C-alpha cells in the first residue's frame, strides 16, 4: 500500500501541477499557466474519438478529459470527446466514430453488454481501440488492445480494509448511477472486507435528490458511522446531509476533485481512494498515438492499473501543491 501511495502521490502531484488552477484564497478566475513551451510531437495529425459514459457535469470526467487533452496536445491529436450515460446511445457514438473513420478510439465500458457489438465492429474495421476506467472484466473479449483503470473490486476491498482498521460501525455505500457495473463492484468489494456496509441508490444528476436521500437515511438509522460515496461531488453533498441530519457520520469517498481535496485538508472528509483519472485519459490517448505511429501496444494483454491509492491528511498537501 505504501509503495502505491508514494507512486501515486508523485504521479498525481506532477499531474496537479499540470492541470489544477491556482488554489489561492483570492478566488475568481485564475490566469492560465503558461505551459513550459511544450515541444509537441511532429507526427502527422491523427483523430481520436474519446467516448465515455459520463453524466453531464461530473467533475471526475473533467479530469479524465483534461488528461486526454494534454496528451492530444503533445501528440498532435485531434481529440473528439463525446459522452452519453445510456448504454445504447454510447454504443451508437462508437458506431459514429467508425463511420467517421477515426484513427483510434478510447472508450469506457461501464455497460459492456450494450457496448460489445459496436466495439467489436470497430476492432474489425481495423481501428485501434483502448478501454479505460470501466470494463475490466470484458475489455479483452471485445478485442480491445489495452485497458487503463483500476480494478474496482480491489479498490473496494482496500476501502473496506481501511474501514475495518478504523473500527468503523455501519457504513453506507452510496451509488450514484444505477446499472454501472464498476460502482456495483466497488460496493461489493467493500462488503467483502467489511460486511457491515449497506448500499443506497441516489440520482447522481440531481444534487438535491442526492442530499435529501442521504439525509433521510442518516435520520432513519443513527447507527451509521461512515458514509462512503463513490465520487467527489457526492462526498461534498454527503457532508451537507450529515449536517442536516445532525449525524456524526464520517464521510469518506472514492475519487477526488479540488473541493474534496480541500475538505480532506480541513479534516471534513476522512480519506479518498484515488484512481488518478487524469492519468487514465492521458495514457489512453498516448497509447493510441504510440500504436499508430510506432506500432507499440501497452499492458501486454493485462490491465494497466492506475489505482487504488489512498489520499488523506498525511499526503493531501503534496497533491494540492502547485
Amino acid at each position, binding site marked *: 500500500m505504501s509503495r502505491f501511495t508514494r507512486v501515486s502521490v508523485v504521479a498525481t502531484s506532477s499531474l496537479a501541477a499540470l492541470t489544477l488552477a491556482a488554489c489561492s484564497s483570492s478566488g475568481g478566475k485564475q490566469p492560465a499557466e503558461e505551459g513550459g513551451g511544450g515541444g509537441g510531437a511532429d507526427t502527422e495529425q491523427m483523430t481520436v474519438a474519446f467516448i465515455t459514459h459520463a453524466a453531464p457535469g461530473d467533475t471526475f470526467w473533467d479530469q479524465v478529459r483534461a488528461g486526454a487533452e494534454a496528451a492530444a496536445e503533445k501528440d498532435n491529436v485531434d481529440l473528439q470527446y463525446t459522452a452519453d450515460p445510456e448504454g445504447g446511445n454510447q454504443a*451508437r457514438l462508437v458506431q459514429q466514430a467508425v*463511420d467517421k473513420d477515426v484513427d483510434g478510439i478510447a472508450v469506457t465500458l461501464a455497460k459492456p*453488454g*450494450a457496448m460489445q457489438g459496436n466495439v467489436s465492429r470497430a476492432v474489425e474495421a481495423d481501428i485501434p481501440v483502448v478501454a479505460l476506467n470501466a470494463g475490466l472484466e470484458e475489455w479483452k473479449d471485445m478485442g480491445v488492445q489495452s485497458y487503463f483503470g483500476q480494478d474496482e473490486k480491489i479498490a473496494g476491498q482496500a476501502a473496506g480494509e481501511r474501514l475495518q482498521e478504523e473500527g468503523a460501525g455501519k457504513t453506507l455505500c452510496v451509488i450514484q448511477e*444505477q446499472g454501472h*457495473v464498476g460502482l456495483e463492484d466497488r460496493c461489493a468489494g467493500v462488503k467483502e472486507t467489511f460486511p457491515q456496509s449497506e448500499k443506497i441508490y441516489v440520482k447522481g444528476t440531481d444534487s438535491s435528490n442526492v442530499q435529501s436521500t442521504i439525509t433521510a437515511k442518516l435520520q432513519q438509522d443513527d447507527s451509521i458511522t461512515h458514509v462512503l460515496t463513490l465520487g467527489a461531488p457526492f462526498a461534498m453533498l454527503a457532508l451537507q446531509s450529515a449536517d442536516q441530519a445532525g449525524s456524526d457520520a464520517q464521510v469518506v469517498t472514492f475519487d477526488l476533485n479540488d473541493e474534496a481535496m480541500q475538505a480532506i485538508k480541513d479534516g471534513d472528509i476522512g480519506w479518498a481512494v484515488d484512481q488518478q483519472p487524469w492519468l487514465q485519459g492521458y495514457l489512453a490517448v498516448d497509447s493510441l498515438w504510440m500504436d499508430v505511429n510506432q506500432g507499440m501496444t501497452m499492458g501486454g494483454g493485462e490491465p494497466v492499473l492506475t489505482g487504488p491509492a489512498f489520499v488523506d491528511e498525511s499526503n493531501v498537501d503534496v497533491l494540492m501543491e502547485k
Partner: protein
Amino acid sequence: MTAAQATTGADDRVAKRSSLNLLFARPEVGALIGAIVVAILFIAVAPSFRSVGNIGTILYAAAAIGVMAVGVSLLMVGGEFDLSTGVAATASGITAALTAWNFGLNVWVGVVAALVFSLLVGAFNGWLLMRTGLPSFLVTLGTFFILQGANLAVTRLVGGTVSTPPISDMAGFASAEKVFAWQVSVGPVSIRALVVYWLLLVLAGALVLQKTRIGNWIFAVGGDAAAARAVGVPVKAVKIGLFVFVGFCAWVLGMHLLFSFNVMQSAEGVGNEFIYIIAAVVGGCLLTGGFGSVIGAALGALIFGMTQMGINYAGWNVDWFYTFLGVMLLLATLVNMYVKKKADG
C-alpha cells in the same frame, strides 16, 4: 382530414381550395420541409453526414425514437398523453429477460410474457383514465414512477444486480435475435431490424388513421369526446385501444434493445418519453388532440435523429450538444409553422 360534406348552394365553407393549398394543409408537410432543411444543413457542414454508408446509423437513431412515436402520435391525435413510454420499453425488455432467466424457460416464453405485460400496462393506463376521469398526464405520470421503481427493484430482486443477467446462452436466444435484432447490408448501408419495424409500424399506423373508420374515431375522440360519444363512437374502447397500442410499440422497442445488447440496464429509458412527444409535436400533432399524423411523427423522429447524429458527425463541441439540439428543433418547428401559415393564408 375528412372529405368536405357535399352540400348544395354556394357556401364559402366548402369553397374549392387549390390542390397546392390542400397539400400544404396536411399536418406532415411542415415536418417534411423541416427535415429537408436540417438534412441540407448537415450535408453542408458535416463530411461524414454526406457519406451514404452512414445513412444506416442515422436511420437507426431515428428508429429508436420513431417506433414509440408511432403509438404516441396516434394517442395524441386521440387527445391523450403517455409519460410512461420511456420506462415501459425498458420494463418490457426486463420482463422478457427475467422471466426466461429466472425460470430457465425458452427465451420466446419471456418474449410472449413481455408482450402480455406491455399490453396490460397500456390497458391499465387506459382503464384507469376512463375509470377515474383524471387527466392522462397524471395517470401515466403515476405509471411512469411505478415502472421506474419496479424496473430497478425487480431486477435486483431476481438477478441480484442492477442489470438483467445475460441470456445469450439460453435456448431460443439465437432465433429471437434473428427476429428482433438482425442486420442486413444493402450496398454500403447497413439496415437494422428496428428501422424496418419502424417503417412497417408507420405504414400501418398511417393507413389506420387515414383510411379506416377506426382512424375517424381516433380523430373524433381527440377532437371532442362528448360529441363523439353522442354520435355513437365507442370512446372508451378507442382510448383504451390507443394505450394498448402504445404498449405494443414499447414491446417492439424493448425486444430490440434486449436482443441487441443481451442485457437490460434497469435505469434506462427515463426522460425518453418527452423525446417521443416532441417527435410527434414537431410532426404536426396538436397537444390538444384531434389533429396530427403518423407520417409527421416519423419525420419528427427523423429530424431528431438527424440532429443528434449530425451534431456528432459535424464534430461540434459536445458541451453545447443540447443547445444545438434545442436550436435545431426550434428551427424545424418554425419552418413547420411558416408552411402551415402559408397553407392557411
